[in-house]
């Protein structure tokens, strides 16, 4: 792993922690347990898109562990919820990136948001042994839809930002460690050309 990639992944991890912390301060106008914008999910998607599954899982799990240590919720109930959600959503977003499915960034993000909710509710049910909390699943899914679409666009923009770092390289060499997602490149939602390089 090159130093550059290490720094970029570290930056993404820090971004995820900061977004997660900021998001916790935004009150949700719904009385729905676990309804969140999921801004950190867009960081996971951008990592998945610009790097690989392994890197995305590393960034996302480091994000939950470090975030848990900072906020003091490490190894508590809330930590397990966000840990399982982050792991499952990253895996399923990777699966949804298959070009045969014909999804764009936002579509993959919606899949990630929905799976995040499903995984969290399943974990909550396993810990509390209270199956009735699944009553909230349809409401959470309906909330995941706009949140997922928004995060997809955000991840798209974040990808532009990450790729534009490469253009400031002093040597200007092609970065071989980037964009090696096994399924090929995920199409953007915006009208801008997908490559930042000229």
């Amino acid at each position, binding site marked *: 792993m090159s130093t550059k990639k290490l720094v970029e992944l570290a930056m993404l991890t820090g971004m995820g922690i900061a977004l997660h912390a900021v998001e916790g301060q935004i009150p949700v106008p719904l009385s729905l347990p676990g309804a969140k914008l999921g801004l950190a999910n867009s960081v996971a998607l951008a990592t998945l898109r610009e790097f690989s599954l392994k890197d995305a899982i590393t960034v996302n799990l480091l994000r939950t562990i470090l975030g848990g240590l900072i906020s003091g919720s490490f190894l508590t109930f809330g930590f397990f919820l966000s840990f399982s959600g982050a792991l499952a959503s990253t895996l399923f977003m990777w699966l949804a990136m298959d070009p045969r499915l014909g999804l764009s960034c936002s579509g993959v993000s919606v899949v990630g948001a929905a799976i995040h909710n499903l995984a969290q509710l399943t974990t909550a049910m396993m810990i509390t042994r209270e199956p009735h909390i699944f009553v909230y699943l*349809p409401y959470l899914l309906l909330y995941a839809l706009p949140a997922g679409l928004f995060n997809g666009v955000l991840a798209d923009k974040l990808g532009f930002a990450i790729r534009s770092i490469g253009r400031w390289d002093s040597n200007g060499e092609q970065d071989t460690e980037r964009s090696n997602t096994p399924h090929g490149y995920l199409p953007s939602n915006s009208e801008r050309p997908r490559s930042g390089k000229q």
Partner: protein
Amino acid sequence: MWCEKGLWLVFKLRKGDRLVIGLVLLVSAFLLISLGGRRKTSYHGLILKVKTADGEQGPYYLASFKEPTKLQFKGPVGTSVLEVSASGVRMLQSDCPDKVCIHMGTISKPGEMIICLPNMVFARLVENE
């Protein structure tokens, strides 16, 4: 720069995206119909069942609460206070950070729940059989 057009949220949806959105809407609509069930007030009175980190509490018969009573439940974060009256149950105060449980308001029909995830308090109304 990558943001020369501004952070304008233009986006186009592809065919697969529409499918995913449709699927999510379909699943949530199906779950809403199948899980929602009937929500009528019962004739035989209501029972409040509370599940906390320590296990099951109650049952509390709502009809037996002539005046609003405060019930305290201990959880991993702190104390949650439920106010129980003959007409319904609401979360009066809780030590959790997000206060979602307080914003849930009063529940008064069978099947309705008040959940405090951080403090692991699950209050549920069931029909008296």
